[in-house]
């Protein structure tokens, strides 16, 4: 029985986590690009980048998670000038040309509960986009 539940856990719980991660990764890729397109070295550009990152999770064509059934709500956006030092609220916008978007959602755990007392486990995806001389691209 443990073996069977373990197999079910592998096939269903882990399979579901992979789907969720793929969905979140598509979202963060698109969100990081949307945010980076707004970066222009000014404070208003920074503010627009912050709202732009969450825009794709809302509206009639919102990207969702868990086989397209749940809204993506936990979105963290941070900015950097050198890709190593990240700030959520930079005091000055000048020089900040990298934006990182991280989406984290709790993937439900059904069968693997027999091994770990968990009802869900966090699945996250992150993307970094850069804006340089008017050209915007995904960095990672």
């Amino acid at each position, binding site marked *: 029985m443990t073996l069977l539940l373990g197999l079910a856990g592998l*096939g269903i719980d882990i399979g579901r986590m992979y789907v969720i991660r793929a969905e979140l990764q*598509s979202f963060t890729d*698109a969100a990081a690009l949307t945010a980076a397109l707004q970066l222009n070295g000014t404070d208003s550009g920074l503010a627009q980048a912050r709202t732009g990152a969450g825009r794709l999770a809302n509206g009639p064509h919102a990207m969702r998670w868990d086989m397209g059934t749940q809204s993506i709500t936990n979105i963290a956006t941070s900015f950097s000038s050198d890709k190593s030092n990240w700030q959520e609220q930079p005091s000055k916008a000048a020089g900040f040309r990298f934006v990182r978007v991280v989406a984290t959602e709790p993937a439900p755990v059904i069968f693997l509960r027999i091994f770990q007392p968990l009802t869900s486990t966090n699945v996250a995806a992150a993307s970094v986009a850069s804006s340089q001389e008017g050209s*915007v691209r995904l960095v990672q």
Partner: protein
Amino acid sequence: MKGTRSAEAGSALIEFAGSLILLAVMFSGIFEIGYSFYTYGELVSAVRAGARYAALQPRGTSADPIVAKAVRNLVVYGDPAPADRSKPVVPGLTTEHVELINSGDASTVSVRGFALDALFMKVKLDGRPTVTFPVNAGAPQ
């Protein structure tokens, strides 16, 4: 309260048959759900590739219908210009199931009216997965 040898053998056989049916049902259930997750994951990456491709193309030219066709082919066959008799990434998926919406600043690709075939049940996919990429024409892939 021991029965005869043949009666014991008979009841063991019935127990075995019963548990075999139960096991078969459980295994096929696991397979079915696992398979639909796998297929949905394939659809997510196909739709993502289509939306990204669409967002990188120049807009508002006479080439727009050609681009739309290429996007549909990319989602279904993994190639904007597929060879004859290419196989779709997911069985049963056709270019009719791919919806492309170009808004002012973004390209949205969704799966519409597709039923994902998972052995015993069909999962209706209408508007999911959906991926939107911001228009960023000419940028590197």
